[in-house]
């Protein structure tokens, strides 16, 4: 295996070992092991139903909310097992935030949406909240569009603006890891482009893990790509290598559009 072009590999953020996840006994993820690296973008690709979203939702234990889900194996976040008994799930989700497929701003003002996270984590000072809101909206490339209507309902924003608002809302809580579950699939091409630019910007500071069904998007935004098929991890490596010289025939078939 030739890794001459690979950058030096830092300590992984997530270490996943022998992960198996089942819905009422039906496995959705089968014995997956991989390492996910900080300050980079890792894309999870694969056809619908391949388990990529289930995998993503295991990383901040959102699967806990679905009745009948069983999780086996180990997921270490900076060395600590996030499924160990006694783990503070609320704190885990604060560190590992999530953006969903459909934008889900709360039915409140733009300001209150972004301030929601800091407020629940104990920030009450008005000036500090304002500063956090401005910084987060700026980082999410939304500030200029909404600065004059911060106290208007977030539901009046366009879909693309709503999704960037959801990202801003996440940035306001100082997460370390951003999980994005097909964040642009419900958006038009221009909004999608803005989200992708934003991801590119944010990867200098965050570990970004993104599920996408869009091959071109995975190719454009990610540093590493993991290909799932029927719950199994088929191939995982630097995006350039996975796309240009896939080792597995099934990866090649999927990327070249022969199925999926």
């Amino acid at each position, binding site marked *: 295996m030739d890794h001459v072009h690979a950058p030096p590999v830092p300590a992984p953020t997530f270490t996943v070992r022998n992960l198996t996840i089942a819905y009422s006994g039906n496995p959705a993820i089968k014995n997956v092991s991989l390492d996910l690296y900080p300050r980079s973008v890792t894309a999870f690709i694969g056809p619908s139903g391949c388990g990529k979203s289930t995998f993503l939702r295991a990383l901040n234990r959102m699967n806990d909310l679905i009745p009948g889900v069983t999780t086996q194996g180990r997921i270490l976040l900076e060395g600590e097992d996030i499924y160990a008994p006694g783990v503070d799930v*609320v704190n885990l989700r604060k560190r590992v*935030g999530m953006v969903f497929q459909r934008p*889900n701003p709360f*039915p409140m003002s733009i300001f209150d949406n972004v301030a*929601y996270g800091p407020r*629940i984590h104990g920030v009450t000072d008005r000036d500090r909240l304002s500063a956090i809101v401005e910084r987060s909206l700026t980082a999410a490339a939304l500030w200029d569009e909404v600065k004059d209507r911060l106290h208007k309902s977030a539901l009046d924003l366009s879909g693309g603006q709503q999704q960037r608002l*959801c990202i801003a809302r996440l940035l306001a*809580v100082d997460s370390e890891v951003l999980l994005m579950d097909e964040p642009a699939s419900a958006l038009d091409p221009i909004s999608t482009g803005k989200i992708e630019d934003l991801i590119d910007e944010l990867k200098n500071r965050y570990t970004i893990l993104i599920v996408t069904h869009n091959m071109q998007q995975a190719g454009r935004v990610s540093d590493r790509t993991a290909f799932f098929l029927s719950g199994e991890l088929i191939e995982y490596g630097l995006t350039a290598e996975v796309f240009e010289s896939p080792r597995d025939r099934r990866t090649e078939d999927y990327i070249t559009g022969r199925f999926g």
Partner: protein
Amino acid sequence: MIIGLFVAARGLPLFLSFGAWRFIASSQWEPAQGLFGVFPMIAGSLLVTAGALLLAVPLGVGMAAFLAELAPAPLARALRPAVDLLAGIPSVVYGFVGLAVLVPWIRSAFGGPGFSVLAGALLLGVMVLPTIVAVAEDAIRAVPRTYREGSLALGATPWQTLTRVVLPAARPGIVAAVVLGMGRAIGETMAVLMVTGNVTALPDSLLAPARTLTANIALEMSYASGRHQEALFATGIVLFLVIMALNAAAALARRKEERA
């Protein structure tokens, strides 16, 4: 509609002969002497209803939230029929229990005659509870799951998610629950009549007896004739107007909220 016209036709003559304002605002109800002032009954109805809502709204919304969000499914399945059962008990049975248990308890615990605004309010509070629980629970369940996920994914606790996102989002439905409960409370006759003492004086405390508009009609209709009977129909008109005013106020409050 026909009932309304009938009541109006039978009651309006008294408004003309006795004076509508005098009928509503004076406090003397002496049918034998031709004095028909229903102000004490208006006050009695409003006090008993307000007291009932003060008890039933926090309790009912709390129970609805518990059933919809926090209770494990088997517990919720066991509790819901118990709440529904409360709605199936005939009001005269409530009145009987109030008479046998509540009135003596209030007499010994707080003094006074026991027959009181407080007894009526407590009893009505229990009676409207099932309505409020059922409607509020539906409203809470109707809040999109994405709001909950969005909140939890930011590291909010289930409690913060409930109080800061889910309940505010369900507020229009909760207001509807309160309005329905209010309608039920103000129209209730038999149970209230049995525990409030029914004196026609203006109640001067929660422990004083009172008569509601509905009780006024029910108590005297069997023997009233002439102007006295007209006065009872006129009481019915006032009851209509009070209910319409309360509904209008609720609708106004909701519209104001939607605009905000």
